[in-house]
């Protein structure tokens, strides 16, 4: 029984925390979000130099060879700083698909470029009608000669505005909601027939709706086995949910700390509002919500590290709890900051919005409660 982080993990944590403290203060982050591209390419290069982009990839491809715990440390610290550079879309999703489904040649082609900060990627998987059921897929990739022709539309693609390359989930056979017949395809975001409508999200991300009109793809665009993408995507989803939960736990810690500090200094009726028992109890509740979230994250980490397939039930539970406790914590943070919590100027609302987007990504609490019931109640 040991919940300590290794010395290496502690070093990564410290390195990101130092970056956030020294180089990513609130005004800097605001300026990056407001800039033309919404991210800093210089920061991205720095992340590569510091080795953060290499964490979840094997050493043979130039990676750090990190496990799920290493990844969660990175996500938690990036969450504390509300870092908008596209680590999650590029490293966790795009890179996660390449490392899971890619051939040796594809891994050799893509992973070093991801690790080196040379490529920004995205995973295009949401469709207008799909909601959280990823197999509900109308985008098609039809065989044509040696290659494929891609047609369809993906929406709210994270990092869709800046990504150079996309992994697209498309149907190569079967009906709209079949679980079989889905494939992953590597697509150049600037290829003929690829059109983007980019827009900003409330958490500072830049996303895009992307349409594919007769996009010609060569045979080696196929990532993994044709028609068998869903298990790969499901496995990626599990890792992505843990990564997002770690980010959420980092955000919760910041929100609770800032709110606690505010209630100790804000005076009304001649005394700090934190001296009122009614508010003290509410802050005890948010503290407990944070600790419970962290505990379930640790359980998911331990199980996933042992055997990813055995962690399914806990991962559904984790998404449910992060959703509930996230809403609880950011709701109280805004409420207890009063009018100040309502301002765009203060960071509180921005942490709240990131938690809201985390909650909806790869299925919200309602969705995962149902998946949990299916898994845990199955006789």
């Amino acid at each position, binding site marked *: 029984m040991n919940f300590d982080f290794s010395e290496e993990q502690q070093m990564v944590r410290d390195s990101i925390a130092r970056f956030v403290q020294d180089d990513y203060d609130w005004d800097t982050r605001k300026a990056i979000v407001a800039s033309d591209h919404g991210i800093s390419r210089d920061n991205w290069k720095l992340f590569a130099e510091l080795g953060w982009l290499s964490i979840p990839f094997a050493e043979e491809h130039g990676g750090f060879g990190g496990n799920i715990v290493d990844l969660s440390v990175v996500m938690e610290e990036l969450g504390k700083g509300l870092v908008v550079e596209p680590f999650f879309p590029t490293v966790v999703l795009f890179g996660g698909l390449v490392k899971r489904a890619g051939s040796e040649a594809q891994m050799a082609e893509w992973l070093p470029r991801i690790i080196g900060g040379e490529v920004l990627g995205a995973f295009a998987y949401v469709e207008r009608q799909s909601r959280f059921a990823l197999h509900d897929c109308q985008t098609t990739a039809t065989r044509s000669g040696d290659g494929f022709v891609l047609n369809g539309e993906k929406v709210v693609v994270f990092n869709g505005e800046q990504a150079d390359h996309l992994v697209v989930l498309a149907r190569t056979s079967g009906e709209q909601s079949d679980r079989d017949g889905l494939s992953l395809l590597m697509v150049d975001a600037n290829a003929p027939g690829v059109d983007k409508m980019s827009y900003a999200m409330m958490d500072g991300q830049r996303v895009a709706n992307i349409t594919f009109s007769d996009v010609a793809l060569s045979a080696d665009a196929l990532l993994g086995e044709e028609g068998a993408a869903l298990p790969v995507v499901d496995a990626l989803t599990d890792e992505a949910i843990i990564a997002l939960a770690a980010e959420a736990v980092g955000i919760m810690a910041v929100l609770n700390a800032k709110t606690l500090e505010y209630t100790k200094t804000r005076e009304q009726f001649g005394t700090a509002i934190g001296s009122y028992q009614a508010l003290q109890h509410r802050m005890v509740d948010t503290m407990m919500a944070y600790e419970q979230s962290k505990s379930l994250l640790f359980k998911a980490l331990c199980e996933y590290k042992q055997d990813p397939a055995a962690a399914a039930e806990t991962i559904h539970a984790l998404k449910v709890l992060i959703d509930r406790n996230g809403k609880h914590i950011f709701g109280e943070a805004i*409420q207890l900051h009063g009018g100040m919590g309502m301002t765009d100027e203060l960071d509180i609302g921005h942490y709240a919005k990131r938690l809201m987007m985390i909650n909806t990504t790869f299925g919200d609490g309602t969705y995962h409660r149902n998946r949990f019931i299916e898994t845990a109640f199955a006789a």
Partner: protein
Amino acid sequence: MDTAYSNEDLAFRDEVRGFFEEAYTPELRARMRSNHKEGAEEWQRKLYEQGWVAPNWPAEFGGTGWTATQKYIYETERSLAGVPNVIPFGLVMVANVIMAYGTDEQKEYFLPRILKSEDWWCQGYSEPGSGSDLASLKTKAERDGDDFIINGAKIWTTYAQYADWIFCLVRTDNSGKKQEGITFILIDMKSEGIKVNPIISIDNHHSLNEVEFSNVRVPAKNVVGEIGKGWTVAKALLAHERTGIAGVADVKRAVRVIKEVAAKEENGGQRLLDDPGFQQRLADIEVELMALEFTELRTLATQAAGGFPGPESSLLKIKGTELQQATQEMLMEIAAYYQGVLPVDLDPDALGHEFATDARLSYMYGRAATIYGGSNEVQKNIIAKYVLGLE
């Protein structure tokens, strides 16, 4: 014990329903979104011409003279038709104060102008250091002949950027208890020495402001009620503010919208509206809403019998705002990924979603409902002290 509508009531309901259908056009709805000030003015002028802009005013001042039931029917139909409330600062708030405490001169000058929406009003209560503890306010008014000289700052002032007038609580005396020495005064926003600083809120919009006063000269005849008795005036106004705040009919409409849009969302073939967990949460909201509707009716009946909305109205504020936020949260959940879309002008066809922007705007700004008008924590203190007698 009876709430059945009479035939006259039913005829009135049909008349109101017909008016909203005809008068609140899609063009007007669009204008309210693109240019809120002009849209709201246009709509309020229409209501004025119809004679319905001030349902709660006594007929002698240009109100409708409606019964309590008719007012209730009107409010219900307004919400169900998706018609926004009138801007409350003039028509609801300061008008009530002027009617109750104003001089004849103030009534004759201000009330007709408010009725015709000729003046925009805003409310100067909160200060940077005085939120929940409103009585600790520090904005100072010093007597100088026939005038007061005002110095200080007000914050969270909705629509100060449009306002012609602001009604303010200011401190005219520092010597006694903090509730004493507060005066209610009307200030022309065009006066020299007033500066309006915008505050962007978490819905990324500009409706809130900070208003600074530097040696602003205001005639003493603009005081409403007695000098030093502003706290009594303010408390009466806050109780008025709280009754409308329950928004029962608005929550009813939100529930209807939730059912409509959740019927169109599917997870792998299962409609979200058919999801048992989703259904249970929506049912919990509806159950609480049914009760709140009758809690509000009981309060209205007390008022109709000549009572004044008292500390019980705090209950309406707490429960009403909790339900508003619960429905806003469900709409965000239904919007899923689209809840985060920031631009408000994307074509829904291109975006692939229709109600996400409305969901985000009302959810984000809706966080304020439990903070403004006396935070829900303060409302609970009021109930504890004045209803339950706990000191």
